C-alpha cells in the first residue's frame, strides 16, 4: 500500500483517489470469485463469441503466415524425403493394423462366446488447433471448430499418441479444450498391464500427470502404460493416457504417488481427433452426418474400416493413425 504524506489536505486528496480504486478492486475480486465458483467466464465467452472469434483468428495469423512461408520455401528434396518417410510409416502402421484386426476379430469371437457386450463403433472428426497462446498457467487449447461443426461440451479429444483432453467451452466456430495436464483436470485410468484402476490428475505443468493415493499393494511399476478405463463414460476405454515415470511414497508413508508423462504428443499446428459419442451397435454405421462439415470418420473397434467410410472420409486417411481400441478388460 502506498501512503504519500500525512497532512490533512493530502489525506482528503488521496481519499478521492482511493475510493474509486477500492470500488474497482472490489468489483474485480467479485468477478474473480463468481468466475472461480460459478464459471462466469465460460458463459461470458459463449455469449461474446462473435467478438472473441475474430480476435483469436487475428492472433493466430502470424504463425499461420509463417507456416505458409515455410511451406513455400520447402525444397523439393525435403518434400520428397518427407513423402518417403510418411509412406514408409503408413506401410508399417498398415501392417500393424492387419495383425491387430486379426486379434480384435478373435477377441470379438471370444466375447461373443462369453456373451459379453460388444464394443461399439466410435465416430471421430479431424479438427485443427488454432495457434493462440492462452493463459500460460492453464493447459488449454483452442480448436478450430465449434457448435456449427457439431462440437459439444464434454467431447474427448486425442491425437496419434493418446488422449489429449476434453472440450469445455463451445462457441459458434471455435471451442476451447482442457488438456489432461491442466490442474483442474482428472481422468479415470487403468494400468494396461495389471488392470489396476485409479485417477490421473493434471498438475498445470505441460509434461506431468500425478496419480496419488496408490496403495502399497497395488500392481503398478515404473514404465507402466496407463490407459483410459472408460469409467464415468466421458472418455472411451482403452486409449493410452500416460506412462508412469516414477513412484514414491507420499508424506504419510502409507500410500504411493506416481508421476506420469502424458502419451499424447501435443504439437502446434497439428490436427486432433474429436471423439463423438460411441455408437452402441456397430452393424448400421451412420455414414452421413450432413450437418457436420469436416467429414466424420468411423473407426470400427474391430480394426476394419467400412468401404463406405473410406469414400466418406475423402482424402484424409485418418482411420490409419488412430489406434483401434484395445479390449478394455484383461
Amino acid at each position, binding site marked *: 500500500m502506498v501512503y504519500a504524506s500525512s497532512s490533512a489536505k493530502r489525506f482528503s486528496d488521496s481519499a478521492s483517489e482511493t475510493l474509486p480504486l477500492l470500488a*474497482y478492486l472490489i468489483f474485480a475480486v467479485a468477478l474473480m470469485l463468481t468466475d472461480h465458483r460459478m464459471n462466469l467466464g465460460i458463459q461470458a465467452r459463449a455469449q461474446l463469441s462473435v467478438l472473441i472469434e475474430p480476435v483469436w483468428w487475428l*492472433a493466430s495469423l502470424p504463425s499461420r503466415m509463417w507456416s505458409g512461408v515455410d511451406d513455400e520455401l520447402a525444397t523439393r528434396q525435403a518434400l520428397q524425403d518427407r513423402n518417403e518417410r510418411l509412406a514408409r510409416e503408413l506401410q508399417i502402421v498398415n501392417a500393424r493394423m492387419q495383425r491387430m484386426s486379426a486379434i480384435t476379430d478373435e477377441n470379438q469371437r471370444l466375447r461373443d462366446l462369453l456373451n459379453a457386450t460388444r464394443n461399439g463403433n466410435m465416430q471421430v472428426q479431424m479438427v485443427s488447433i488454432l495457434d493462440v497462446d492462452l493463459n500460460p498457467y492453464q493447459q488449454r487449447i483452442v480448436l478450430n471448430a465449434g457448435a456449427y461443426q457439431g462440437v459439444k461440451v464434454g467431447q474427448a479429444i486425442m491425437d496419434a499418441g493418446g488422449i489429449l483432453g476434453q472440450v469445455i467451452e463451445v462457441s459458434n466456430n471455435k471451442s476451447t479444450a482442457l488438456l489432461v495436464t491442466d490442474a483442474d483436470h482428472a481422468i479415470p485410468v487403468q494400468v494396461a498391464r495389471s488392470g489396476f484402476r485409479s485417477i490421473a490428475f493434471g498438475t498445470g505443468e505441460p509434461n506431468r500427470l500425478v496419480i496419488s493415493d496408490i496403495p502399497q499393494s497395488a500392481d503398478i511399476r515404473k514404465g507402466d502404460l496407463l490407459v483410459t478405463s472408460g469409467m464415468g463414460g466421458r472418455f472411451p476405454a482403452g486409449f493410452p493416457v500416460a506412462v508412469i515415470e516414477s513412484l514414491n511414497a507420499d508424506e504419510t508413508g502409507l500410500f504411493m504417488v506416481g508421476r506420469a508423462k502424458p502419451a499424447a504428443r501435443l504439437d502446434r499446428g497439428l490436427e486432433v481427433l474429436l471423439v463423438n459419442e460411441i455408437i452402441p451397435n456397430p452393424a448400421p454405421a451412420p455414414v452421413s452426418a450432413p450437418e457436420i462439415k469436416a467429414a466424420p470418420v468411423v473407426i470400427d473397434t474391430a480394426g476394419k474400416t467400412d468401404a463406405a467410410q473410406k469414400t466418406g472420409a475423402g482424402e484424409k486417411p485418418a482411420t490409419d493413425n488412430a489406434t483401434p481400441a484395445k479390449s478394455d478388460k484383461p
Partner: protein
Amino acid sequence: MIRQSSSVMRTVTLLAGVLFQIIPLPSGLDLARPYLLALFLCYWCLETPEKTGLGTAFIYGLLSDLFSSGLLGEQALRLVIMAFLVSRFRARLRFFPLWQQALAIFALLLNDRLIMSLLHWLVNDSALSWVAWLSPVLGMLLWPWLFVAIDMLRLRARERS
C-alpha cells in the same frame, strides 16, 4: 484534431497490447512474455492522465482476461493497481530520465508479478516458474524503445494535422 489522433492511437496501442497477450510465442518463452498491455497503459497514464484512468485499466484488463481465457477479473485487478500507482507517482515519474523511468517500470511490473503469483497461489496453489520472472526484465528493456516510438508517432500525427 490532435486530441482525436491521440485517442485513436491510445485505443490502437492498448488493443495491440491485448492482442499481444495471445499471439503465439515459442513454447517456454510464453511464460516470459513481456506485459506490453501494462507498458502501453503506463505510457498513456503518464501522458494523458485525464483520459486514462482506473476505468480504462479495468476495461482493457477485462478484455484481456476474456480473450486469454484466464480467470475473469485477474488482469483487470492487476492493471487497476498499476494504473493507480502510476497516477499516484505521475508527477515524479514524468520528469525522470528515461533509464530511471525504466527502473520504476521494472518495479511496477515486479509488483504486478507478485500480485499475480499471490492470486495464483490463492486459486490453485501453483507456483510461478522462474521463467515468469523474466517478464518484468524484458518489460524494463522494452520501455525506453516503446516510449520513444509512441512519442515520435504522436509528434508526427501532430505535425500532419
